[in-house]
């Protein structure tokens, strides 16, 4: 956990997991090309479990959400949760996969205490969906990463190895998670660097959040990742021997573990060794990948079709139902923002990072704000403050309409840009409307030409030297004089009116 705590501001480039691995000279490393494929497990956002009616909620007291089916009691049978199937299909369509007309559940047999039936119900030779792709952006370029397959399965229960008086001797099991619906998404080995892997997982998470297929909460385990990694000399056509690296349960671990594993493989090859095809575990504390003991993974899973469930038929009606609830996906929305709102691709990327943020932006525009202005306010003020306070945009006390009102006040010149920011800060704290804060705190801009002229005369009178310099042709002094007027009006004078009045009065003499 030490790694986690020290790395809040980590950049991808700084991640160097161990001394040992980073001892390879960069030019040696550069001779090799990593080949990476990711297997991602995603918990679906259903109310109930995949094969029974128990709640799928996270965080309930242990073993609250259990029944004969998810406890694997004798005689209990699974029945497929229709919503789980629909969400899996939704994810498949969002990832441009072909949803197979007929797919089938299979049993994956192995013994483990967190697996109550002695088998996992997954899909094997007939997965739900195949042959999709996902676009990632990295280094300013876009690249397609192929999706090999996407299938449904049930999650295992959770072993609780710590925290009990007898934890040195006994393990407890919480079956609340057992039977929660998962999809497994397997990518093609199209990923060529840890950074691309990061970009892939980012893009995948974004799509799954947009489609509301999953809450993608990595801390709660609703998004988990394993990687298949090999390296080869640049130019080599064949793949090298791969290892499977497990336990990559944060973006940070993913990048660290991949960098470590790539360097380990290069070092092994460079020193004349060969890569063993094996499963390795990312050891968070030690910052390295370690081979799992062969017993832990050398399974013959004896897959066979699950006789308790009928084959899954993706009917036209079901596909139509899922398509009808499909939101605009991130890539399409980015493109539309650039096209319709005239903002830069970069800004569009920031504003479409989440569906909620993109919705917020569009609501602000719909409430009358100019797109570019709204984009600036959201990025510079709103996101900065949300980041600082750690809040979600949904919890923001400034609703889009309120932001649009503030923008209008500034645009109409009723408050200065500086006041606008102060008002924003107060809105963010209190949720009060902009107009009221402006009035209460005296932010209203002074438009009255007479009042401004009085202030200007006062400044000219008090600064005879500077006035003389200006009149002698020193243009630089003008800024100083404007500043004095603004100061005298506590920043509330309309700067344009000040400019005009000052020039007129200075020229008059």
């Amino acid at each position, binding site marked *: 956990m030490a790694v986690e705590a020290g790395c809040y501001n980590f950049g991808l480039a700084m991640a160097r997991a161990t001394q040992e691995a980073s001892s390879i000279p960069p030019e040696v490393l550069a001779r090799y090309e990593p080949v990476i494929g990711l297997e991602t497990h995603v918990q679906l956002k259903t109310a109930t479990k995949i094969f029974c009616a128990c709640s799928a909620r996270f965080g309930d007291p242990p073993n609250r959400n259990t029944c004969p089916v998810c406890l694997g*009691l004798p005689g*209990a049978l699974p029945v497929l949760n229709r919503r789980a199937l629909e969400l899996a299909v939704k994810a498949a369509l969002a990832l441009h996969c072909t949803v197979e007309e007929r797919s089938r559940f299979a049993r994956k*047999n192995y013994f483990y205490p967190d697996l109550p039936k002695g088998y996992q119900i997954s899909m094997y030779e007939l997965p739900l969906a195949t042959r999709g792709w996902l676009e990632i952006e990295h280094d300013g370029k876009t690249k397609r990463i192929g999706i090999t397959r996407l299938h449904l399965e049930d999650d295992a229960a959770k072993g609780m190895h710590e925290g009990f008086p007898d934890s040195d001797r006994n393990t407890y099991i919480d079956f609340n998670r057992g039977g929660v619906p998962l999809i497994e998404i397997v990518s093609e080995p199209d990923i060529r660097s840890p950074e691309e892997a990061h970009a892939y997982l980012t893009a995948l998470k974004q799509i799954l959040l947009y489609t509301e297929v999953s809450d993608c909460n990595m801390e709660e385990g609703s998004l988990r990742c394993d990687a298949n990694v090999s390296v080869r000399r640049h130019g080599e056509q064949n793949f090298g021997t791969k290892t499977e690296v497990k336990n990559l349960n944060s973006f940070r671990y993913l990048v660290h573990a991949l960098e470590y594993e790539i360097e380990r493989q290069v070092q092994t090859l460079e020193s004349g060794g060969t890569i063993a095809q094996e499963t390795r575990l990312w050891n968070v504390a030690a910052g390295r990948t370690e081979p799992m003991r062969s017993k832990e993974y050398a399974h013959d899973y*004896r897959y066979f079709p699950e006789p308790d469930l*009928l084959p899954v038929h993706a009917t036209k009606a079901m596909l139509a139902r899922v398509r009808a609830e499909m939101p605009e996906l991130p890539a399409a929305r980015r493109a539309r923002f650039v096209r319709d709102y005239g903002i830069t691709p970069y800004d569009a990327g920031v504003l479409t990072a989440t569906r909620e943020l993109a919705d917020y932006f569009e609501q602000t525009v719909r409430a009358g704000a100019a797109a570019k202005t709204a984009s600036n306010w959201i990025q510079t003020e709103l996101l900065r403050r949300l980041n600082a306070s750690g809040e979600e945009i949904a919890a923001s006390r400034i609703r889009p309409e309120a932001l649009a009102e503030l923008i209008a006040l500034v645009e109409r010149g009723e408050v200065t840009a500086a006041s606008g920011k102060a008002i924003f800060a107060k809105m963010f704290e209190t949720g009060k409307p902009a107009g009221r804060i402006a009035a209460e705190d005296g932010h209203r801009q002074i438009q009255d030409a007479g009042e401004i002229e009085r202030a200007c005369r006062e400044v000219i009178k008090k600064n005879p030297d500077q006035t003389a310099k200006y009149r002698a042709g020193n243009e630089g002094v003008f800024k100083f004089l404007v500043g004095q007027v603004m100061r005298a009006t506590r920043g509330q004078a309309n700067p344009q009116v000040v400019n005009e009045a000052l020039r007129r009065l200075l020229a008059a003499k």
Partner: protein
Amino acid sequence: MSASPNASAGAAPPAGSTAWTVAGIRRALESRKVSARELTKDYYARIERENPRLNAFLALSPDRAYSQADAIDAKIARGEPLPPLAGVPAALKDVLDTRGTETTAGSRILKGYVPPYDATAIERLDRAGAIFLGKTNCDEFAMGSSNENSAFGPVHNPVALDRVPGGSSGGSAAAVAAGLAVVALGTDTGGSIRQPGALCGVPGMMPTYGRVSRYGLIAFASSLDRIGPFASTVEDVARVLEVIAGRDPLDATSADHPVPSYSAGLDAPVKGLRLGIPAEYFAEGLDPAIRQKIEAGIGLLKQLGCVPTPIAMPHTAYAIPTYYLIATAEASSNLARFDGVRYGLRVPGATLGEMYRKTRGAGFGPEVKRRIMLGTYALSAGYYDAFYLKAQKVRTLIKGDFDRAFQQVDLILTPTSPVTAFRLGERTEDPLAMYLADIYTVTGSLAGVTGISLPCGKVCGTLPVGLQVIGPHFEEGRVLRLARAFEAAGGFEL
């Protein structure tokens, strides 16, 4: 041994009847000749008397039985209409989950296990007013053809105590044959209702796959397992079946197919029904005395106007290996949950692996271990295609035999078993010989069709012969209609 189950009963059946039936109980209850409680008490007295010799029951559930009986008696007292199986004493095979009553599947590994829920078929029987006397003995996890694989000792055949009752539902068949229950539920995976029905001389029916929910049936082989009734009469088989049949949202493989009133359709004419007689079922290995009885049975049906027709079922010879590959493969996976972690037996070990090995080593009997090993092998990498996959292909061919046959004929008639009840211990040393006891029943199991075994006379004066009537998917009504005609014409006593 009392051949007539009611000979010494405290609550005698109505005059003119030889035993209690569903309809007879109903009449007696309605006319207040007997109460459900009296009837229940009487059956427990019979069980107390007979069970030590038969070992048909593993556990009794008097608390539940008397509370069910009292509920029926209360209805009668209030003059309320009675449910279809009101007051009918029933025996339940121990692979069926019963809330609050120990359910072991005949295995040491589940000794002491009390399910928190009723199987769907059990729940439906309960709602229909049946009285649950207790749980019947069976081969461990329904794996066997003689009941000798029970961890709790074999069942003795009521017709000859030194002989097996057949299996695996031997306890249920014996309970009905000995008059210790009016009806019973069994399960049939490769013949486990029909074969003990034949060997004990009672009708026993395997419904179509999907006809009766499997929810709460402790799985042996999921794609083959069925729940079905035993009774003394065809009418009572029909009455139980129509209660337990029908779609169940808890079993994805249960069919959404209408359930007719089987009992109401029993007496429709059978004249003109074409009966397929497959030569493959009358070949070498069939006891000539059985053959004679079956042929007499067919002759009787011919007299009733049915039309026996020779048919060919060319893939019959492959049924036994096919069945034993598929059933064991599924069993190897289904029995993985008995791991000592959550319920049942746990033998401690120094490591997790040792706990698993010791628990399963001590908890499972030799036949169950043999099948788990066979099935594990059939599913293993490198063997899957040659064994499991090939078996599935042959299963399709066997199903094709039935589909073609049912284009020519309405029903198929065969012996249920090539042998009559054999002596206890006679075949236990030779598992292969034991597997061949299922030779005429596994085909229908693999094809998913429905079948019934009917008593068809006795050989050597005491040993019952079973006639198997097989019908197409969901044609239980047709099978029962023929069975009823056969029974009415005296076929049971041929």
